[in-house]
């Protein structure tokens, strides 16, 4: 589904990604862990098409298409979804209106008619219930005045609405209380199928108790330096990153 080969990217002449390899197949969950500043969010940004990053080498294909050649909206319409580490507040843009537009622009891209209003409302209610987002929040301006945890929950709500092929969750767990963490993780688990996949970026093994990963990668200094199964996360929780860094040299 996603194939990243030797990806190198820089921002303002600073090399951040230094030859990153990753392959994600349908039905898989990949966790990416790693110290602050390692390049995890940069990877998410480059994959989703944020401005300001220059890809200096390597490739990323998504279902065979050259991902790096697509506009951000085309990537989204192809089925890529990024749950932001820091979701922006957009005053005056209504959450529901915005989602309706998103759903329909994606449908149009796929050659489908707009979703009938009734079906949309039904879907909205269903997904709201899934992540236990209050309908009050769903009706407000996008993220405006939301608490940190509410913003994260709104990200997962949007992901549930758009049903992407690949969901990238950038530290969706930070800022969530214990109940919210469980709710969000449950949401992800319910969305999981043999046809879609998730990349979960996190600092805490706790999330991985709920969303059980098939692979755990350690990203350090712009590269994936170790890959293991879910037990690697436990080991990292216990020992930190130094031993891997040491192993590397």
């Amino acid at each position: 589904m996603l194939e990243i080969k030797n990806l190198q990217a820089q921002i303002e002449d600073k090399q951040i990604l230094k030859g990153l390899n990753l392959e994600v197949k349908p039905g898989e969950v990949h966790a990416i862990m790693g110290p602050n500043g390692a390049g995890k969010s940069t990877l998410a940004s480059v994959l989703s098409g944020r401005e300001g990053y220059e890809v200096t080498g390597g490739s990323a294909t998504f279902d065979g298409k050259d991902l790096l050649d697509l506009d951000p909206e085309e990537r989204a319409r192809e089925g890529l979804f990024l749950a932001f580490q820091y979701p922006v507040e957009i005053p005056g843009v209504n959450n529901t209106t915005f989602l309706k537009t998103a759903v329909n622009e994606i449908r149009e891209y796929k050659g489908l008619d707009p979703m009938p209003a009734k079906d949309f409302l039904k879907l909205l209610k269903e997904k709201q219930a899934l992540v236990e987002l209050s309908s009050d929040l769903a009706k407000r301006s996008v993220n405006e005045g939301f608490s940190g945890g509410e913003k994260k929950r709104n990200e997962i709500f949007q992901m549930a609405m758009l049903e992407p092929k690949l969901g990238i969750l950038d530290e969706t767990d930070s800022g969530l209380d214990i109940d919210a963490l469980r709710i969000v993780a449950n949401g992800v688990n319910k969305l999981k199928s043999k046809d879609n996949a998730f990349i979960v970026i996190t600092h805490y093994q706790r999330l991985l108790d709920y969303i059980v990963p098939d692979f755990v990668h350690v990203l350090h200094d712009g590269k994936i330096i170790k890959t293991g199964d879910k037990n690697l996360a436990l080991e990292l929780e216990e020992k930190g990153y130094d031993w891997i860094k040491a192993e590397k040299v």
Partner: protein
Amino acid sequence: MSTFKYIANFVEGFKSNDWNLKTSEGVDFPTRKTEYYKYTSLKKLSTQRFASISSKVDARKVFEGLDDYATVLVFVNGFFDASQSKGLTDQVSVVSKLDSCPAFLTSQKNVDQLFTSMNNRFATDGLVIDLKGVLKQEVLVLNILDASGMASFTKNSIRLDKNAQCSVVYKTISTGQNLEQFSNNYFEIELSDNAILWFYNLQNGTKALNLIEQVESHLSAGANLHYFCISKAGKLVRNNINNKITAPSAEVNLYGIMLGEQGSHIDHHTLVDHDTPHTQSNEIYKIINKEASTSVFNGKVLVRPDAQKTNAYQSSSAILLDDASNVYAKPELEIYADDVKCSHGSTTGQIDKEALFYLQARGLSKTTAKKMLIEAFLTEVTDLIESEKAGVLTSQMIQEYFS
């Protein structure tokens, strides 16, 4: 009545004193050195030949939903068209300069003498509202400008008696495309004690439109003016919105949207003159510019020495969609009383890139995302529109701006 004569251009017509303004009324032609016209050059007007031209236009063809209004007044090129108008009463009617004119307010020192004097001389017909009581439905006034090279002048008066209330939707529709048009409209607004007026001024321009309007309002105790004006396109659009509050508890609310495109020049000049204690004014202006257009907001607030406890708020914010566009925002506060609350702020910026990316990352095209963010930017003003009909007409203009 003297109709506007065909002249070579504005400066020439003025210099030759064809209009008889220079000598009889001591008027000067404003130049860029005139402070009041610092950001708006009338040179843009000066090359054009204009004349008063009468014309026939099917109002239904240029304005959808005419039948939704009980009271409709249609003016074409400044001339009242009775056959397409309806619902006139002794309180909502029309004045022609040929009839005896109601005495227009002369007490106010006019800051824009040239156009006021021209209007005095050349105005053909105009709307007259002289209202007691409450008018529930909006009065629709269409200012249709047809034919190229046309100049029109209307003089309008709205007087609300004590406790009277009404809502006016005034829409300028320009059909000109090639040669330019010139439209000048003067509005006198007099609000007696506790009267409330909503005035929705919808200026839908074309590249060919030159539009110069002047509002002179006067508020008595407890009166409320809600003046909303949206200007879209136009070659040269200038609004002078002058308000005088002379009794306590009165409130002036001015809301504006400027949508600049295709090299247009749009200028809103406001003045609120607080001349008595315990009064309030609110001004909110939202400006969007694209395609090498220019917008000007000049907001003057005058708080006279006696006007203690004045509350004056003013804000203007602009988004420039390209580098070739410009905005000039100038607040002018003249405050001579000490116990007052006055605030003003103005911002100019671009579309929020982070927000734009966020929306795109959810599948919205850049165009849709931009449009959504701009509509959001405008809601601070559009949310204040109380008339549903005016709200629909406003959002239509905003949609057109993107198409």
